């Protein structure tokens, strides 16, 4: 077994480094810079039943050691994605599709359509803070989350993970709800709800007022949440939230993550996921690990 080989949600990954949804398009753009097939898996941009133009106004804002975004799930819609999912397959790595929605009906119809796509894992997005209805509301309430997860699980033919919001009252309860409803894994965290004000215009920077905070700034909080969740559930945990370096990724794995996702760090350094894979290999060699799994959850 390769030192970085990992099984996540029942799917074999060549390494545990994945790209986070919404930060990597559908892989095409970064594939012009390097072979994205060398990543453990790639997660596509968040999809919804119907295509969407996303939010108006400013969409990105620099913050201390991070950024706020308010893209609002601009996407091509699940039908168009199904037509082109074979393009992601061509990269030669595991493909994860991320599905968001505004209502239960919408999630279910979209999950049904997505069954025709050539993907490996479905990530149920119940944590987008940038859409006006649905999204994060499902993730913030364990009862709603349980019901939605169970219903989508009935329909989808793919292993399913649930992407959790750190804005839930209790993220551990949310993870447990996803586990009880039959999800193969959970991914956490999505962005933290934040805000910025333009002091010259004396107005909120974003049309939606609030936006999602990501980047290095959120890493210690995301790490704590991953640690808490990993201790409380038996299903696989995909850790994410401000991971920029190999050391960050190692901390998430030691906190209990089976795989890690790199998001905003790709903006700061587009080769960040590659550097982390290389760094994890070096760490295993230096510490005589036969597989990266040996250090999982040791803290």
């Amino acid at each position, binding site marked *: 077994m390769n030192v970085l080989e990992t099984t996540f949600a029942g799917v074999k990954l060549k390494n545990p480094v994945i790209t986070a949804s919404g930060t990597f398009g559908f892989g095409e753009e970064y594939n012009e810079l390097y072979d994205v097939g060398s990543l453990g898996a790639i997660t596509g941009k968040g999809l919804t039943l119907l295509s969407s133009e996303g939010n108006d106004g400013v969409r*990105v804002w620099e913050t201390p050691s991070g950024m706020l975004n308010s893209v609002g799930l*601009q996407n091509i819609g699940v039908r168009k994605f199904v037509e082109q999912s074979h393009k992601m397959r061509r990269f030669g790595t595991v493909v994860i599709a991320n599905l968001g929605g505004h209502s239960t009906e919408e999630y279910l119809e979209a999950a049904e359509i997505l069954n025709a796509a050539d993907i490996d894992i479905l990530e149920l997005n119940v944590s987008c803070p940038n859409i006006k209805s649905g999204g994060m509301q499902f993730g913030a309430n364990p009862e709603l989350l349980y019901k939605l997860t169970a219903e989508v699980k009935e329909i989808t033919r793919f292993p399913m993970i649930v992407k959790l919001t750190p804005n839930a009252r209790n993220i551990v309860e949310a993870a447990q709800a996803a586990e009880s409803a039959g999800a193969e894994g959970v991914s956490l965290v999505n962005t933290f709800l934040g805000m910025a004000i333009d002091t010259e215009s004396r107005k909120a920077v974003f049309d939606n007022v609030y936006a999602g905070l990501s980047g290095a700034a959120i890493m210690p909080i995301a790490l704590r949440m991953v640690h808490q969740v990993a201790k409380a559930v038996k299903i696989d945990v995909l850790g994410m939230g401000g991971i920029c370096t190999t050391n960050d990724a190692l901390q998430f794995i030691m906190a209990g993550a089976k795989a890690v996702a790199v998001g905003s760090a790709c903006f700061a350094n*587009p080769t960040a996921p590659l550097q982390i894979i290389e760094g994890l290999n070096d760490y295993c060699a230096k510490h005589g690990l036969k597989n990266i799994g040996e250090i999982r959850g040791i803290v």
Partner: protein
Amino acid sequence: MEYGKVRVKSNYKLSDGVFILSAEGAELPKQAGQFYMLKASDFSEPFLPRPISVFDVRDGCVDFLIEVVGKGTQALMSLKAGDELEMFGALGNGFPDEKRDAVLIGGGTGCAPLLYLAKTLGKRKTIYLGFNQRDAVSDYLLERFDGICDKVVVIYGGFVTEDVIYSEDAVYYACGREAMMKVLKQKADDFGTKMYLSYGNRMACGVGACVCCVVKTVDGNKRACKEGPVFDSRLLV
């Protein structure tokens, strides 16, 4: 496109807030109007790189004319010759060369991408430059454009868009602040003028992955970093 650390060849201050950063060892642009994501160092402050369009290409170096607007550009201004610079590019689609007489319109330091454009365009070129006032920056830019363009018109204060002669016989290229671009788009529609506008929207990834920099067009949102930053004015809404 390439990503990596390159060397700062020189960093020349034109004024307190405007400078020309010259980078050596990077992939050269294929077209005027392309841009690079620039950052003083990878995960430290600021977190995101800044999209900066090519001002000039000289002796294998790429020059950027930059005005300080926040901490990203401030960090770039503090770089010294020999320092490392994170550089990702060349990115985006630049100005198409239509092999026709060209009219260039630049608002303040927004004229940056027009210099390399003027150098690479083959035909007769007129440039209109609008500045708030005459200063060291405007004098420098005027001198640079003077040697390359057939005619240079400069306006201090006021609106450069009002002095431009719009015609169907030439192709127009422009870059400047949002308000200027809005007026130009309207002028192009009114006079039936072929016009290309370059947009310096806020960006995160620079390659089309994050869709943070979209511009509204008749075909829906388009990414300034991928389909742009240069757009045919007729496609804009």
